[in-house]
């Protein structure tokens, strides 16, 4: 592989990985706080993309109005899911929450088939996302870079919120000990809602950019990025936000590089990601950044 081809593939990998990372953060934040794998998370990715489609196609809104509205609407759906499906089950066995999450996922997908229709829809990129950029001999489509830049900005913002704000401090506290956090006079429900809101907003942003990269919408389009992002979250160490970012990037780069180096293996791209998950669960279930749960007395 020439240097140019390598760079090209690397950028594509990082770009895909950035999408995984954005979506993976939602899984990991919810897991860190509630020990719940939110299976409906991938469907929020789909919703984010559809809102943009309708905003542009039906309401003829410009992209810079549609994108924030789509993120806002998806965030709202995320909050409603948490309040209506997960909150009532918080004091029941974990398996109930798990079943509810799978149920919500089916509900969203089937609602989307009924409301949006089952036939794929074409997503039209705003022009500025579609131009060619030449850096040296490497030619990139502008969305490749914009995805990466967006991901960096959003991740930096998230890290700031988690480490430097009061709400972020409460989130870190809840992820360690929910009950004791409530003993600090902190309204747990409020903080959990904020965590869901952040995760959902990132999923929507990821979904919109996913649609920019793969511009075809269908009601089940959230499943693939959802599963891949889940693998990325586990790879990085579920419950750890840095881990989700690293896991996402790694998965994206490795996936693209694998196809680039062994073009005949291209069909096994997804199988490869799942193989990573299986091996990881067998040999290092805590992932890259995950900590072993040990109690110090």
């Amino acid at each position, binding site marked *: 592989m020439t240097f140019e081809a390598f760079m090209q593939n690397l950028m594509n990998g990082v770009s895909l990985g950035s999408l995984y990372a954005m979506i993976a953060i939602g899984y990991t934040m919810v897991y860190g706080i509630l020990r719940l794998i939110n299976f409906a998370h991938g469907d929020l990715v789909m919703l984010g993309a559809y809102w943009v489609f309708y905003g542009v196609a039906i309401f003829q809104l410009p992209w810079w109005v549609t994108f924030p509205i789509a993120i806002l609407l998806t965030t709202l759906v995320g909050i409603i899911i948490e309040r209506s499906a997960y909150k009532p089950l918080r004091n029941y066995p974990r398996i109930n929450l798990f079943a509810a999450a799978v149920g919500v996922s089916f509900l969203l997908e089937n609602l989307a088939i009924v409301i949006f229709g089952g036939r794929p829809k074409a997503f039209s990129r705003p022009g500025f996302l579609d131009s060619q950029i030449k850096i040296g001999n490497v030619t990139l489509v502008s969305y490749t870079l914009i995805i990466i830049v967006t991901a960096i900005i959003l991740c930096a913002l998230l890290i700031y919120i988690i480490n430097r704000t009061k709400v972020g401090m409460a989130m870190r*506290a809840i992820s*360690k000990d929910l*009950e*004791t956090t*409530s*003993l*600090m*006079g*902190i309204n747990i429900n409020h903080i959990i809602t904020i965590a869901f809101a952040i995760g959902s907003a990132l999923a929507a942003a990821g979904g919109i950019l996913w649609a920019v990269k793969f511009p075809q919408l269908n009601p089940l389009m959230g499943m693939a990025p959802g599963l891949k992002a889940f693998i990325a979250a586990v790879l990085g160490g579920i419950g750890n936000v840095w881990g989700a970012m690293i896991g996402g990037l790694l998965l994206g780069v490795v996936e693209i590089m694998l196809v680039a180096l062994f073009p005949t293996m291209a069909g096994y791209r997804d199988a490869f990601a799942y193989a990573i998950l299986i091996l990881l669960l067998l040999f290092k279930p805590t992932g890259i950044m995950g900590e072993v749960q040990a109690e110090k007395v």
Partner: protein
Amino acid sequence: MLKVENLHVSYGGIQALQGISIEVPDGKIVALLGANGAGKSTTLRTIMGIVKANKGSVLFNGEEILGLQPDVIVKKGIAMVPEGRRVFANLTVTENLALGAYTRTDKAAIAKDTEDVYQLFPRLKERETQPAGTLSGGEQQMLALGRAMMLNPKLLMIDEPSLGLAPVLSQGVLSKLKEVNQTRNQTILLIEQNARAALSIADYAYILSTGQITIQGPAAQLAADDGVRRSYLGVS
């Protein structure tokens, strides 16, 4: 300040508390003693709103607080140091204290209370930027206590502060409690398995046995009582 009346609690068919009544007057240290499983922690957790009661009443300054959420009860002025300290191991000492002051907005008073805690426990000041998980057991107990003090509570409830600490350390923690009680006129409800040590700092004590109050009285009187000495203080 706190008046618990006829409190009944059961977990899955088992009666953990069978109608206990205790009272904590302003400015006093009240100790709740008894063997493992007697229902001491359940009593505190019920007052705090973590465990739901079947029957009874908990009056805090004359207001019924039974059935309220823990965070609401905290805002009314009750703080609890849970059993096993439960400091936030991934957060620094300073952050742990800041969490105690989470719902307060009076910046100057928070800064002053932080200083007070550091003055009371200079060891915490030395370790303010360390994650709480790296502290020793005794230091974590100090932090848990300091964190609760940051809530600026009217009533401070402490569950087994000497659990897992060396005798010297647990004596130190209890004398700090006495100091807080004396200097800040802090009302305290204390759970302790080490009855002798608890009676030495408390004003009044209740002894719980399988969910019922069996003995109560001024601490000095209980410490001198032959029956109590035999059953709870290990004196034959």
